[in-house]
């Protein structure tokens, strides 16, 4: 009998174009789908032009505009000249090299990691890359998906391949079931807190166990999205009936006749019984509480019923020093109860948590309530399709009646490359994925939470245990 293999090994082996020159060295992997956006592609296109090289597979390349775009009502004039020229460069490059672009006027436009799955481009067993670290999102379908730098973007343009050293494997087993009021976001934040922001460096994570099987596709995407926050190269979840149900009928998914055969192959991807992982960690989902980050790294996280820790009790010197710096930056005293932290801003958006279910969860909390006085809250749907679906359900009205701003799709305040930013010293409850210093605006203070927790914070003006509001 064949050696049992992990899902990662199956996908990897299927994509080897050339073996390593020396044992353990990089192998040449084929890339099935290359996603690009305006920020990390211009220098790669410039490289092609400078060398006179062609883009090998425009048909396997797909572009959108998300990072820089204003989220004002359309049509608008882009006031920032640098953003405007970067967006214009993408449009020109896509035209010249024959790449399909979901631009600002497209009904498909949105955050790259939201739209590829909803269009059915993201499929199990694929290799998917993008010049963006949250490419790990697509692993929710059992694809091997990872972020690359701009030099690698150029390499994929020219060759449709990448040299990659084989990463290690780490299986995170989640036992039990998520308790009411806790979500996929709490699960992944807690996991990052446990294994550390470099706990999975050099590894591909497979998320497994009963708690993962129960998750919807959108929730699985939230989990895989933040793999990079644990340092992982990628995160993967085995395809199952949930995956098939999501994909069936999507525009780029196999059509009715081909679907059955594709589905059978996809279900074969799951790790074999007895497959060996380099490491395995077990986490108990049933014990989870809603999570809130208190520092400037996603691993600095506490349950909403907890408190900001005292750095003096942290034994690792690097982590202690980082915690001390973080508390100074966040203007928080050790021992502060999470529930006593008041906020100024709320951001519901990003490729982590701006899909329809996320907005529905937040709206369920907001319905019949009002944004606390002094708080500015905004909802930025992840894509035009999410926006349309949310509006069809009346979610936009629920948010707006409560005092939220309802905006157009884009990365927005996840990284503040567009005009949506925090002012220095402002404190924000955010559904995004990074609470780094200045990430949402210079001097801004970010606390990462789930959409429901963000909605509750908006309405009470401070972090509130959403379980009390169910």
């Amino acid at each position, binding site marked *: 009998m064949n050696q049992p293999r992990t899902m990662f090994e199956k996908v990897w082996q299927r994509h080897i*174009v*050339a073996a390593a*020159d*020396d044992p*353990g*060295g*990089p192998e*040449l992997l*084929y890339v099935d789908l290359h996603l690009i956006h305006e920020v*990390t592609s*211009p*220098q790669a296109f*410039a*490289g092609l032009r400078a060398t006179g*090289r062609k883009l*090998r597979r425009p048909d396997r390349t797909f572009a959108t505009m998300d*990072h*820089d775009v204003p989220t004002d009502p359309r049509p608008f004039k882009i006031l*920032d000249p*640098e*953003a405007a*020229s*970067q967006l214009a*460069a993408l449009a020109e490059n896509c035209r010249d090299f024959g790449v399909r672009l979901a631009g600002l006027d497209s009904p498909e436009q949105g955050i790259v990691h939201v739209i590829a799955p909803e269009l059915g481009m993201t499929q199990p067993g694929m290799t998917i890359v993008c*010049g*963006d*670290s949250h490419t790990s999102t697509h692993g929710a379908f059992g694809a091997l998906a990872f*972020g*690359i*730098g*701009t*030099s*690698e973007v150029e*390499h994929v343009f*020219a*060759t*449709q*391949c990448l*040299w990659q*050293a084989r990463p290690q494997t780490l299986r995170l087993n989640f036992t039990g079931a998520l308790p009411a009021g806790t979500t996929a976001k709490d699960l992944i934040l807690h996991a990052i807190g446990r294994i550390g*922001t*470099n706990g999975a*460096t050099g590894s591909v994570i497979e998320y497994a166990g009963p708690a993962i099987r129960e998750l919807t596709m959108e929730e699985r995407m939230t989990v895989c999205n933040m793999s*990079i926050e644990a*340092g992982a190269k990628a995160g993967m979840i085995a395809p199952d009936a949930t995956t098939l149900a999501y994909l069936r009928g999507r525009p780029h998914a196999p059509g009715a006749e081909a679907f059955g055969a594709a589905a059978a192959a996809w279900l074969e991807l799951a790790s074999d019984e007895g497959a060996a992982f380099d490491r395995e960690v077990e986490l108990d989902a049933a014990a989870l509480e809603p999570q809130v980050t208190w520092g400037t*790294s996603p691993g600095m996280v506490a349950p909403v019923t907890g408190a900001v820790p005292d750095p003096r009790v942290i034994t690792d010197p*690097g*982590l202690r*020093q*980082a915690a001390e*710096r973080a508390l100074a930056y966040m203007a928080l005293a050790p021992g502060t109860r999470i529930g006593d932290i008041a906020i100024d801003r709320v951001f519901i958006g990003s490729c982590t948590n701006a899909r329809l279910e996320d907005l529905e969860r937040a709206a369920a909390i907001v319905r019949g309530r009002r944004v606390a006085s002094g708080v500015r809250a905004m909802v930025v749907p992840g894509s035009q399709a999410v926006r349309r679906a949310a509006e069809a359900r009346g979610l936009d009205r629920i948010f707006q009646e409560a005092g939220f701003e309802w905006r157009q799709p884009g990365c927005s305040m996840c*990284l*503040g*490359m567009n005009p949506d930013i925090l002012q220095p010293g402002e404190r924000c409850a955010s559904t995004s994925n*990074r609470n*780094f*210093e*200045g*990430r949402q605006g*210079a001097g801004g203070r970010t606390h990462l939470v789930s959409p429901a927790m963000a909605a509750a914070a908006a309405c009470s003006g401070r972090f509130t245990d959403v379980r009390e509001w169910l």
Partner: protein
Amino acid sequence: MTPFTPLEAAVLPLDRAHVDTDQIIPKQFLKTTERAGLGRGLFFAWRQDPAFVLNQPRYAGAHILVAGENFGCGSSREHAVWALMDYGIRCVIAPSFGDIFYNNCCKNGLLPVRLALPDAQRALAAGRLRVDLATQTVIGAGPAIHFEIAPAVKQRLLEGLDEIALTLRRLPQIEAYEAMHP
């Protein structure tokens, strides 16, 4: 890519761990369509503090950065590497690196060296270091310290090879793969 020749230079010590690429080069500098000129954005927020290492005259002209663990974690932005190089950094020494950042360094000729912190600190007492990729050694105060690097990466850095040109020599294999997996 410029070949990496033995480097003897002053060191810029950055006594911080888990430095993410948002700190190395913040978002307001990512709207460029060029690679050049990003040095002015290097550690932009931290640089506002006059006491920050980059502002101390004694570290001016340093070409080697020594930092804490997990350096370059977070965002994939290659701008972080371009900013370091534009500032004059040719080698970064840290106990560990973010994966994408490490790769990005290798693609640009910025040598990333994984060195345990006590080793790095001992060597640092000299204030200057000699980094020799061919022999995979860092020499400062005390005995030479060996570091690991993948042979293929080492060869490309030493020879300054264009990786895309090398891969395009494999075109028949790529075409064969595509024929088998339409």
